[in-house]
């Protein structure tokens, strides 16, 4: 177990390192001077400051030097300085935004599980019935609706007919948990609906498989009702691949959360990244990307490591 965990940790480190190279080179596809020109175009920066910036950012340094400097900034924890907001570090703004996105992502995943697992189980138990077809169609619909559009429609018709008002000011979870959930539940459900589709499909197929296993037959032979067999014996075993799926969806959950939080005016990573992009705050964009990747890699790692705990049969080799 320990060597397995160490190996996974190492592999995650390697991937994160590659992501850093990927992000860095993506941000350097244009030559450095064009980068500064773009900064000038925004009109926020005087020529003097620009010249100063050129030195500060080290654009005249060779690329490997720039990269090593960035990695140094990452390890020192500041993640570099914002190009737009003088005296503010990249980290400062991420620290404020990341919890919002992570909270939305977790709530979205939880609602996806709450929707997907029961529906998938019902669908499997009543295989090929009208109910099964209905549930499967709804889940396919969930795969086909752009989440941001669903959010937009909810906002439009919510305001028109239900007196819903998109919140103007963000309420943080630590200050006012109830107010915070009040803002979060609608985007979480929308995110969850989109994600529940694949969870439902996976649950359906694994439950179908597990229902024909020997232990299910044994449980039935003991005289347990079908209800108890499914809930106590089948679903528990069928959920392992579903957990894996949830872990693998982390990147998509993050993406979904980004766009929904922009739509619902929540000050998370999506808004921060989009703002940084329109302001051409390259160090900020770079920082946001690497943090997003770290969250995804971390989630996948946690899921991998939790296998043994979820399913004691798993042997790490």
């Amino acid at each position: 177990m320990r060597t397995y965990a160490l190996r996974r940790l190492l592999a995650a480190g390697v991937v994160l390192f590659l992501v850093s190279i990927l992000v860095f080179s993506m941000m350097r596809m244009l030559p450095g001077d064009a980068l500064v020109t773009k900064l000038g175009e925004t009109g926020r920066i005087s020529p003097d400051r620009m010249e100063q910036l050129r030195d500060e950012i080290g654009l005249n340094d060779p690329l490997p030097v720039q990269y090593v400097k960035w990695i140094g900034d990452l390890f020192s924890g500041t993640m570099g300085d914002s190009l737009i907001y003088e005296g503010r570090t990249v980290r400062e703004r991420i620290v404020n935004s990341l919890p919002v996105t992570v909270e939305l992502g977790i709530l979205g995943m939880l609602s996806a599980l709450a929707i997907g697992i029961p529906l998938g189980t019902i669908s499997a138990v009543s295989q090929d019935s009208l109910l099964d077809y209905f549930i499967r169609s709804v889940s396919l619909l969930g795969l086909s609706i752009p989440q941001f559009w669903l959010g937009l429609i909810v906002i439009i018709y919510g305001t028109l007919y239900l007196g819903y008002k998109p919140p103007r000011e963000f309420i943080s979870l630590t200050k006012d948990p109830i107010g915070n959930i009040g803002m979060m539940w609608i985007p979480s459900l929308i995110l969850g609906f989109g994600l529940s589709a694949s969870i439902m499909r996976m649950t359906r197929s694994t439950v179908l498989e597990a229902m024909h296993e020997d232990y299910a037959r044994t449980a039935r032979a003991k005289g347990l009702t079908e209800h108890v067999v499914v809930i106590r014996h089948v679903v528990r075993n069928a959920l392992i691949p579903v957990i894996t799926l949830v872990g693998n969806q982390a990147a998509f959950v993050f993406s979904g959360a980004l766009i929904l939080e922009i739509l619902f005016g929540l000050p998370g990573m999506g808004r921060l990244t989009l703002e940084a992009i329109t302001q051409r705050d390259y160090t900020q964009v770079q920082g946001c990307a690497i943090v997003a990747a770290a969250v995804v890699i971390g989630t996948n790692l946690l899921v991998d490591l939790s296998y043994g705990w979820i399913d004691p049969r798993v042997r790490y080799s």
Partner: protein
Amino acid sequence: MAVVSEESAIILPPGARTPRPLRIIWSFTRRKPVAAASALILLIISLMVLFAPVIAPHEPNRPSLGDRLAKPSSDHLLGGDELGRDVFTRLLYGGRISLGAGLGATALGVGLGVLFGLVSGYAGGWVDMTLQRIMDAIMALPPLIFLMVISTQLSPSFRNVVIAISIFVTPGAARVVRGAVLSIKEMPYVEAARSLGASPPRIVFRHIMPNTFAPVIILASITVGSVIIIEAALGFLGLSVRLPQATWGTMLNSGAQQYMEQAPWMAVAPGVAILITVFSINLFGDGLRDVLDPRLRGKGK
């Protein structure tokens, strides 16, 4: 999003006789009527989009202030937008970009993925290791962040949007193909080809690649749908093809949100277009998977 298991390798019997296209379509329709119907809907949508200049009642990009936020009527089937442009017309023209990006990015991304997957699966060793870690790295970046970052560096043209999205499609395809190759390369006929002295490229492209097509086709059919949604998300954020060119995503971007109370059709129309298209693609893809994946055959009977 599309989830395809790595092991969904399907091996068609080598040398299977290819029946005539019409017969394939007929037997598919009989076995999967819903999937066939969605294929028909897709065909109709594609034709409408393709013949947009013929069908469209108005100019897509010319503002006409008299029709500003016009309600849906016989003149403006789906109403007018904030500049008085006809929403139906823009929907048709926008579909060209959205569907084009969907197909283009899928073709490019899956093509690259097949290539990487073949190399990775057949070569094994450190080549496999390196390629896989690179794919992992691309996959670790949330697609939207990845595309946002790329968009800062590429000008917002159709070509660049397609290239950007295709990069995010590649790893999924590479994994599926790699998984298939790993099992196919142990097959007796591959061994036979090797013992006859066939060169590695010949083995890979002649004997292995054709047998990975089934999972690739399934993956591609589902990917088109998610690419259309991703492109729409980019457009919605104002990061897709340059305005005033319409795409289904950019149509949701500015006016649709600003005037959502006076003119809800501006937001409803493009979304419904995306929904119908992607829903049909997914239904079709599901049917295709049932037919092509022998492991699922006979299940549920």
